[in-house]
């Protein structure tokens, strides 16, 4: 029994504790100077700007698919007029943030895990420390900050292109005009629909960057270790994000009761 606890229980708990300390340190250091502004800007470009085509294209496709499903459902009740608003609500509240989170987790999470993993196994992180640079601040905090800044902006893009995709599908069926569709889409949207859903992606960005950085910076075993770090970064960040999303939705309902109605 003692051997089982020592080998099967203690190591995962120790790793979890270690990761929690790592995340706590990252959160603290995000707000503590000195700020690595130049490197942070570079990471915002990598995380945000370079994810833009993927997010925009995915948003457009998701909008088309959601519009088709929404039409199929609302047609039964003769409520076709609500299609734009229903799509916008679903997109802005949940689908947009979550899809952006999963996309960024795949593209950026894997990238961070692989890049930091490669830097670890080739001693580049030690080289940073040897030239008197705080590698945690330079590598981890800049990526965490960049992901936290980029995620809400990417979500805005996803929501916009999703609505454009919805209009594309709807106009093909009903010939609805662009302006009329947009007016209908935003007719039911409230501040509390839009802002909490968009801002929760700041938390998603934190989870993605911290998870991938932690796994990358603790990579070992050469190129195979780098590959494992990249794969595990995507899986762990996605699962953690989806799990935390449950708590965040509950929290949003608690803080903004009108969103639960």
């Amino acid at each position: 029994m003692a051997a089982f606890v020592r080998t099967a229980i203690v190591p995962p708990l120790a790793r979890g504790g270690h990761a929690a300390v790592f995340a706590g340190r990252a959160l603290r250091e995000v707000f503590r100077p000195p700020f690595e502004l130049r490197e942070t800007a570079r990471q915002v470009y990598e995380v945000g700007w370079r994810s833009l085509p993927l997010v925009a294209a995915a948003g457009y496709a998701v909008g088309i698919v959601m519009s088709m499903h929404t039409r199929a459902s609302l047609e039964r009740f003769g409520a076709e007029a609500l299609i734009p608003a229903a799509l916008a609500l679903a997109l802005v509240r949940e689908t947009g943030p979550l899809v952006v989170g999963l996309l960024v987790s795949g593209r950026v999470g894997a990238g961070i895990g692989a890049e930091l993993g490669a830097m670890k196994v080739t001693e580049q992180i030690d080289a940073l420390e040897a030239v008197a640079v705080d590698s945690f601040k330079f590598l981890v905090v800049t990526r965490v900050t960049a992901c936290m800044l980029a995620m809400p902006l990417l979500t805005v893009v996803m929501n916009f292109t999703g609505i454009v995709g919805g209009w594309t599908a709807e106009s093909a069926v009903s010939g609805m005009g662009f302006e009329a569709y947009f007016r209908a889409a935003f007719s039911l949207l409230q501040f509390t629909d839009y802002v909490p859903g968009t801002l929760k992606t700041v938390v998603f960005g934190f989870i993605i960057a911290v998870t991938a950085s932690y796994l990358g910076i603790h990579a070992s075993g050469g190129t195979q270790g780098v590959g494992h770090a990249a794969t595990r970064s995507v899986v762990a960040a996605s699962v953690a994000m989806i799990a935390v999303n449950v708590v965040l939705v509950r929290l949003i309902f608690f803080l903004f009761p009108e969103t639960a109605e």
Partner: protein
Amino acid sequence: MTAAGSGDRGATAAAAAIRLEGVSKAFGAFRVLDDVTLRIPRGQATVVLGRSGTGKSVMLRHIVGLLRPDAGRVFVGDDEITGLPPAGLAAVRRRIGFLFQNAALFDSITVAENVAFPMRRHTALSDVEVRARAGAKLAAVGLARAAESMPGSLSGGMRKRAGLARAMALDPEILLVDEPSAGLDPVTSGEIDDLLARTREERGTTLIVVTHNIPSARRLADTMIFLHEGRVIARGSVDDLERSGHGLVRRFMRSEAGG
């Protein structure tokens, strides 16, 4: 063979740049350093010899604070780095240049930017001055034409020389060099040795060079240290080690193997 400290050219007279006192380090059950006590004289070249896996690189990593000993203390000048907070450790590291065994160049920026990196971080030099100095450092190691190349496109020997240029970027008081000859042809290896010797003479830089290259060690060393199974088993001048009572040390010194 001499006792530690005796027989070194001026070792007893010079102040210590680095001291290790009873340093031990183990990775799991493998004891890499075992109660190592050393005094590296300021302004001299100390060459560390030993078979692969005997703790030479681990010793360098302790000196720059990348590893903390399980027991014992490490001093750089008067600073005991084993207990320093991050800010204090960073201040000590700015006085040290470190060439890694595999160069460890930052592979997302050019060779010139690798060399410029420490200057951009720790000096108030203008961009023009930083570029000029980085160019001069690269020219000194024969890499002026590779300045705008990415590290991934360089040969092993070129990476090593670029790493050396980066290690010397801030004109450090102490230069730690791990296997400078590895992957280099004899002519280039000799040029690197000359550069290291010139740096020591002109700037009074304290050199610690880990190498398996005996001709290179002979050219550079004021003092030699021989590590075996985590312990210093011989220390002294080239002549001292050639007359060592340890058969392994004598065999090592007789070999003419290059890096």
